[in-house]
């Protein structure tokens, strides 16, 4: 299982047998930070079947499991791409470029109009939704239809990235 360091955001791989009762304990292979946190439920199937469920927490993997969602990513202003569920044809450089441009866009727009929570770009029959999670992070979701984005838009408010720390 891929888990992310709470301190540096580094991507670490843990065998699933080391995770018991959703408690993750590991030392980051990049910065040696001793991580200890609990994972939220990531039942993809339930969320996909019942998008209007009362689930309090949602992961990006649940969001991209919806029909007509093509991909998604989480971008951090300083750390770059934290989570990547985009099509494999896109390189790391492509994703960093995409993330930094979209981050600047939504950041400036929110500073100019505090009511703006989300930006949607319609490019070549693809709908790209960009939403700021906190001061440093955005989530980007690409959908084939506007209905698909509409379906998941309510879930953004419940988004918690269960395997890494978004704050800071």
């Amino acid at each position, binding site marked *: 299982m891929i888990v992310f360091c709470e301190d540096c955001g580094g991507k670490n791989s843990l065998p699933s047998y080391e995770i018991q009762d959703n408690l993750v304990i590991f030392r980051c292979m990049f910065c040696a930070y001793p991580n200890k946190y609990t994972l939220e439920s990531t039942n993809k199937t339930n969320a996909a079947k019942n998008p209007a469920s009362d689930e309090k927490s949602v992961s990006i993997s649940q969001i991209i499991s919806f029909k007509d969602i093509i991909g998604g990513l989480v971008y951090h202003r300083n750390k770059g791409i934290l989570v990547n569920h985009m099509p494999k044809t896109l390189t790391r450089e492509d994703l960093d*470029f*995409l993330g930094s*441009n*979209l981050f*600047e*866009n939504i950041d*400036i*727009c929110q500073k*100019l*109009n505090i*009511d*703006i*929570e*989300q*930006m*949607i*770009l*319609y*490019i*070549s029959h693809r709908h790209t939704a960009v939403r700021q999670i906190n001061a440093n992070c955005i989530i980007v979701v690409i959908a084939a239809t*506007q209905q698909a984005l509409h379906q998941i838009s309510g879930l953004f408010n419940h988004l918690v990235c269960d395997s890494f720390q978004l704050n800071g």
Partner: protein
Amino acid sequence: MVDFNDIEQVGQIDGVKAYILVNEKGKIIFQNIEAPEKMAHMISVCLKNAFAIAKNRLKYIYFPLPTKNDIYIFPVGRFGLGVVKHQKISNMVFVQKIIQFLNKLVHP
């Protein structure tokens, strides 16, 4: 070459609450919008970044707002047309109307 006066007719379209046209540097060509300088800056930055990603495949950028007076930005050549939607009209109908209007200007 599209005449700016023709583009300003966007204000006659049902569902358009306010509008602004800016060039790529953020200079306002015409407007009837609240806080036009802020909006002009927003449009020029958004279009610059969106063009960097999408080139000429960008159709529009859209900002849903809690008031339902959603903001749209449409590229018009090297210009950006910002339009605020009236809350009573549906988004899909609104987008269709604006795109039809712009297509007619380019291909009369």
